[in-house]
């Protein structure tokens, strides 16, 4: 079963605009990760945020995590046509400190950036 629920399911914006995607999950987590997938190909790891972190930045990406609400958001600033892809959040419920045991994915948000 899939734990994460991304919102919206699809998002269409113009180049230069910001894109915000949200993710909600159900159980406790060790960390939450965001991935990008282009046209049914492999997933590209974007960013990982640990359960004790609230915000993280990487280039044009900003991720927030609210464990009390069991939710996360991914903000892509100044979007480009090349950002067109599906974006997935994945929760890692690993209870040990021994590395990832598995990832639980949502259904993803399909982002289209129009030139």
């Amino acid at each position, binding site marked *: 079963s899939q734990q994460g629920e991304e919102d919206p399911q699809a998002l269409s914006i113009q180049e230069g605009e910001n894109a915000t995607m949200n993710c909600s999950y159900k159980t406790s987590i060790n960390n939450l990760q965001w991935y990008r997938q282009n046209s049914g190909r492999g997933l590209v*790891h974007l960013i990982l945020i640990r359960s004790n972190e609230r915000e993280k930045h990487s280039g044009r990406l900003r991720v927030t995590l609210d464990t009390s609400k069991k939710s996360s958001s991914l903000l892509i600033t100044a979007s480009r046509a090349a950002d067109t892809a599906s974006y997935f959040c994945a929760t890692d419920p690993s209870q040990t400190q021994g590395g990832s045991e598995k990832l639980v*994915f949502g259904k993803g948000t399909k982002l289209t950036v129009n030139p």
Partner: protein
Amino acid sequence: DAGVTQSPTHLIKTRGQQVTLRCSPKSGHDTVSWYQQALGQGPQFIFQYYEEEERQRGNFPDRFSGHQFPNYSSELNVNALLLGDSALYLCASSLKGQGSYEQYFGPGTRLTVT
């Protein structure tokens, strides 16, 4: 630095047949996880191999089995194929030995069962 590689890229099989998919992890990684992604869905965890043993398993029947070799590469075997097994099969590698949580994915194998 070689990333995760998978073979073959595409595969067409008939119902009832058996299939083997292969994965080589990213250089330096010791753990391989397999995921199934149906069209329009997010990936679903099948199982994870570490130190040549299955360590975690998702909600998949015994028709799905795997193996990890001493060089950390891995195989996914699916027996008695069903139409519903048609999907993109993704392999991901990570470095469990150092408590790393990032998983790096290969390009996937697209399996079509007719």
